C-alpha cells in the first residue's frame, strides 16, 4: 500500500506548502457550463405552449425561455465542483492587503438565518421591534468604536459609505452657504473608490502626493487646501500601514480651511480599542464591516459600509435612522422607531442596506466585546510585523501596523502573486500603492497562527528565490493555468450565448 503514495518529491522537504487545486476536465475542457449540460426551450402561450396555458394574452408575454433544466443532484454536483475550484479563507491564508480577509465565524451564519430575522422592510414599527432594536444597538456599538456621535447603517459597502460621506459634506456646506466648495482632496496612495466616490458626487478630485516617509506631506496639503476644499479623505493607518502621526495637525488644517475630514474605515482593524477616528478630528467615517467585523466577503460581496458622523453632521445623514422613542420606553421594555434626520440627504439604497450583513457584524462585535476587539488589533499588528520580519522581500516603509507593503524588487509583483498560488496561499494585493515599486501589500490579519505565518513566509521566500521562467509560467497547480487577459478584453465574451456565436 505504501508504494502507492503519490509522488510529491518535487517539493522535497521544502518549508512551503504545495497545493494542487481540484481540476475537472471533460472533452479537453474544464468543468462544463450549466448550458453545456442542458438547454431546454420552454414555449409560452400560443397553441403549442409547454405550460398549461398562460394567464396573460400573448402580446404581453415572451415567446419562449431557453435555459438549462437539470435535476437537483446534477446541480448539487455542479456547484460543489465549482466551489472546489475556489480558494477561500477557510482554504488557507489570504493576506490580501487592505481587504482584511479575516476568518468568518460560522455561528454568524446561523444567526443570519434565524426565522425571526426574515422580515419585510415595509412592516410597521410596532411589529418589528426586534429588528429595530438590533439596528439601534449596532448604531450604538459602532458609534462607540469609532468615537462618532451618530451612525447610519444604510450604505451597502465601503464605497457607498464614502458616497454618503461626500453627499453629507455637500449638504452640510450647502446648508452653510458654502456650496461653492467643489474640491475633494485624496492622497495619491488612496484606494480607487475614494477618487470615484468624490467624482460621483460631482467633485473635482485633487490628488495629494505623500512625503518621503510615506505619509501626508503637510506642505503639499497646505498648498492643496483652499476655500474650494469640501473635504479631505484619509485612511489611517494609511495604505502603507503607517499611522498619520500628524493627524491632529492635519485635522486642524482642514478645519481651518473650512473643509471636513473623512475617514476611510478600511484599515480600522489596526486601531480597534486603541484609537478612534472621532478622537483624531475626523468628522465623518465609514466602517467597513466585511473587513473589520469579519462578515464573509462572498466572492466579492455583500458588505456593508455604515457611516458615523460628529453631531454637527447628524442632521444630514440618510433616512431613516433608528432611535429609542423616549416617551414610551422603559428600561425593561424599550420602544424603537424610525426617523428622518432633519436635513437628510435622502436615500442611497432602496431600503435599509444589507441587513443580513449588519446582523452578522452585530453578532461578531457582541461576541468579541472590548477584550476581543482590542486583541484583534494587537494580534493583527503583531502578525504583520512578524511576517514582514520573516520574508526576504524588502519592506521600505515603517513602522507599519496591520499591513505592510513589500517590494518584489526586480521581480514582477503580479508574477510573484501567480507563483504564490502554487504554494497553497493567497497572494497579497499587488502593484498598489504605487509609491512602492512592484508592491506586495500584505495583511495577514489576526487569525493566522505563528505556524501558518511561517508557512506563508516560506511561500514568499520560495518565490523570492525563483527565476523569471518559473514565475512567468506560474501558476501550475491551480485549476486554470495563467489566463490570457488581453484576449478576454479584446474579444469580450460575457455570456454563454456569446460563446456559441463564435463557435
Amino acid at each position, binding site marked *: 500500500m505504501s508504494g502507492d503514495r503519490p509522488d510529491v518529491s518535487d517539493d522535497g522537504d521544502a518549508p512551503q506548502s504545495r497545493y494542487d487545486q481540484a481540476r475537472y476536465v471533460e472533452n479537453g475542457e474544464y468543468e462544463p457550463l450549466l448550458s453545456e449540460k442542458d438547454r431546454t426551450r420552454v414555449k409560452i402561450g400560443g397553441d403549442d405552449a409547454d405550460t398549461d396555458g398562460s394567464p396573460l394574452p400573448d402580446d404581453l408575454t415572451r415567446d419562449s425561455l431557453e435555459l438549462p433544466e437539470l435535476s437537483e443532484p446534477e446541480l448539487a454536483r455542479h456547484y460543489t465542483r465549482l466551489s472546489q475550484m475556489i480558494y477561500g479563507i477557510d482554504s488557507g491564508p489570504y493576506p490580501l492587503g487592505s481587504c482584511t480577509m479575516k476568518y468568518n465565524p460560522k455561528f454568524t451564519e446561523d444567526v443570519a438565518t434565524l426565522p425571526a430575522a426574515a422580515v419585510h422592510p415595509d412592516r410597521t414599527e410596532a411589529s418589528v421591534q426586534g429588528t429595530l432594536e438590533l439596528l439601534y444597538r449596532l448604531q450604538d456599538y459602532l458609534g462607540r468604536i469609532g468615537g462618532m456621535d451618530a451612525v447610519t447603517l444604510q450604505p*451597502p459597502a465601503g464605497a457607498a459609505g464614502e458616497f454618503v460621506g461626500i453627499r453629507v459634506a455637500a449638504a452640510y456646506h450647502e446648508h452653510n452657504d458654502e456650496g461653492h466648495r467643489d474640491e475633494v482632496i485624496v492622497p495619491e496612495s488612496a484606494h480607487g473608490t475614494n477618487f470615484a466616490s468624490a467624482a460621483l458626487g460631482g467633485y473635482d478630485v485633487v490628488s495629494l502626493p505623500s512625503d518621503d516617509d510615506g505619509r501626508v506631506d503637510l506642505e503639499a496639503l497646505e498648498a492643496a487646501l483652499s476655500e474650494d476644499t469640501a473635504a479631505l479623505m484619509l485612511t489611517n493607518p494609511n495604505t502603507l500601514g503607517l499611522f498619520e502621526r500628524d493627524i491632529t495637525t492635519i485635522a486642524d488644517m482642514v478645519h481651518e480651511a473650512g473643509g471636513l475630514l473623512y475617514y476611510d474605515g478600511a484599515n480600522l482593524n489596526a486601531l480597534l480599542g486603541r484609537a478612534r477616528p472621532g478622537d483624531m478630528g475626523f468628522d465623518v467615517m465609514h466602517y467597513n464591516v466585511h473587513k473589520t467585523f469579519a462578515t464573509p466577503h462572498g466572492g466579492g460581496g*455583500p458588505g456593508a459600509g455604515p457611516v458615523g458622523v460628529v453631531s454637527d453632521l447628524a442632521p444630514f445623514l440618510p433616512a431613516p435612522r433608528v432611535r429609542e422613542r423616549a416617551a414610551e420606553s422603559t428600561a425593561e421594555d424599550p420602544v424603537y422607531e424610525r426617523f428622518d434626520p432633519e436635513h437628510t440627504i435622502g436615500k442611497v439604497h432602496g431600503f435599509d442596506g444589507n441587513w443580513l450583513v449588519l446582523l452578522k457584524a452585530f453578532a461578531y462585535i457582541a461576541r468579541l466585546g*472590548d477584550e476581543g476587539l482590542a486583541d484583534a488589533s494587537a494580534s493583527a499588528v503583531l502578525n504583520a510585523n512578524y511576517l514582514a520580519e520573516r520574508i526576504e522581500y524588502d519592506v521600505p516603509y515603517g513602522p507599519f501596523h496591520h499591513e505592510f507593503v513589500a517590494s518584489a524588487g526586480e521581480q514582477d509583483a503580479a508574477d510573484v502573486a501567480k507563483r504564490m498560488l502554487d504554494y497553497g496561499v493567497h497572494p497579497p494585493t499587488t502593484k498598489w500603492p504605487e509609491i512602492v515599486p512592484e508592491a506586495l501589500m500584505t495583511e495577514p490579519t489576526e487569525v493566522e497562527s505563528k505556524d501558518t505565518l511561517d508557512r506563508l513566509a516560506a511561500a514568499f521566500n520560495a518565490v523570492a528565490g525563483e527565476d523569471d521562467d518559473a514565475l512567468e509560467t506560474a501558476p501550475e497547480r491551480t485549476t486554470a*493555468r*495563467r489566463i490570457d487577459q488581453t484576449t478576454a478584453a479584446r474579444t469580450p465574451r460575457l455570456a454563454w450565448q456569446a460563446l456559441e456565436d463564435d463557435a
Partner: protein
Amino acid sequence: MHGSHATGSPYAPYTEEDRTAMLETVGAEAVDELFDIPADVQFDGRFDIDARTERETRRLVRSILDRNDDVTELLGRGHYGYYVPSLVDHLADRSEFLTSYTQYQPEISQGFLQALFEYQSLLVELTGLGVANCSMYDAATALGEAATLADRVRDTTGHRVLVPELLREERRSTLENYVAGTDLAVETYPVADGTVDLAGLTDLVDDGVVMIYAESPTVRGTIEEDLAAIGDLAADTEALFVLGSDPVALSLLERPVDVGADVVVGDASVLGLPTSYGMGLGLFATREDYLRQVPGRLVGASEDATDRRAFTLTLQTREQHIRRERATSNICTNQAWVALRTAMHAAVLGPSGLVELAERDVQRARDLAARLDDFVGVIASVHDRHHLREFVARVDRPARAVADDLEKRGFAVHVVGDHEIQICIAGVCDERIDEFVAAVEEVTR
C-alpha cells in the same frame, strides 16, 4: 488556551509561547511597542461591550429578534419573500463561496467566476440584451447607475430624466443622490390607472430627455401593456429607455430587447434571497453598444496557458481601482454571493419552473383579488390591468385601520392610500391565503 477569550479574540489562535517568540523575532518587548500612535490620540477608555461565548451571543441575538412579531407577510413593492430551495442555502454556504473575495487571481477562483458568468448568461437570456454585469447593490442603486450611464453615453444637450409618478419614493431618492454630481434633473410623468399615461408622457418628451424609466410590473403590481410605445418614444428622441423588472417577471413578460429597452435594472434577489429587510441584488443589463460604459464587474471567457476555456474579470479599465475618478462607477464590493444564490435558485427552477412560477404569480394574484372583490366594502383590484403577484385593493374603511386589524390577526399588508391596501401573494402558501381571505372578510365588514 484556545476557545476561551477572557484575554483576547477567540479567532486569534495564539499561545503565550507563540506570542513571546514572535515578539522576540520582531524585537519588541510588548505588542504595545508596535503601535505608532501619538499619545494625544490614543484611546484609553472602554466601549463597554461585554465579551460573550458563542452560545450567549446566539441567545442574545435570538432574544432581540424574538421581539419581531411572527406575522404572515403579504408584502411586496420591490422586496419579495419567495420560497428559496434548500439547495441554495446548503451549497452557497460552502465556505469556498462564502469566504473568498473578488477574483483578483482568476486561476484560483474559476468556480466563482464560472457561477457569475452563468448568472450573467441567465440575465442575457431573460432580457435579450447582450451584456449583464455581475451585480449592483440593489434595484435603486442600479437605477442610479443607469442614469449616470445615460449621462455618459447620450450627447444630447438635455438633462432630463423621466420617471413614473408611482415610483417608490426610496428609489427616487436614491436616484436623486446618484445624479447629484451631474447636470441631470429628475422629473415625473403621469400614470393612468396604474400604468404609464402614454399621452401624458408623450407631451413631456422632447430633445432634452436623456432617459425614460418605466417599470413592469410596476410598484403596484400592474403589468405595462405598451412598453414598445415607450421604447419608440425614447428612440425618437435618442433618450435611453431604462426598464425596471426582475427575473421572475422577465421569465414570462415580453423580452426587454423586443420593446426597445436599452438598459434593464431591478432586484434580481427575488430569486435566491428570502425576505431580508430590503437587502437585494441590483440587476444591470444593457446593449453591447454601451459595453465600455457599464458600471461594476464583468466576467468574461478567455483561454489559459493550456488553451482551455477559462474565466476572468475583464474590461477592468472601466473600474475604480484603475480609472479612479474617471471610472464608470465607484462600486467595488458588490453583491456577488447574492448573485450566486440567484443563479442557483434559477437553476433549480429551470426554464419550466421559472415560467410556471411567474404564471402562478399572475393567476394567484388574480384569484385572490376576485375573492376579495366579492366582499362588500372591498374593490379588488382597483386597477383594470393585468397583475403579477400583487395588486391594490380599495377598502371602504380607512386603510390604516384595516391593516392594523389584519396585523392583529397575523397578517401584514401595505397601506398605500387613505382607502387603499396592497397585497402580495409571493411566497405565501394557499392555506394562509384562505385564512387571510377570512380575516379580510372580518375586518372590512
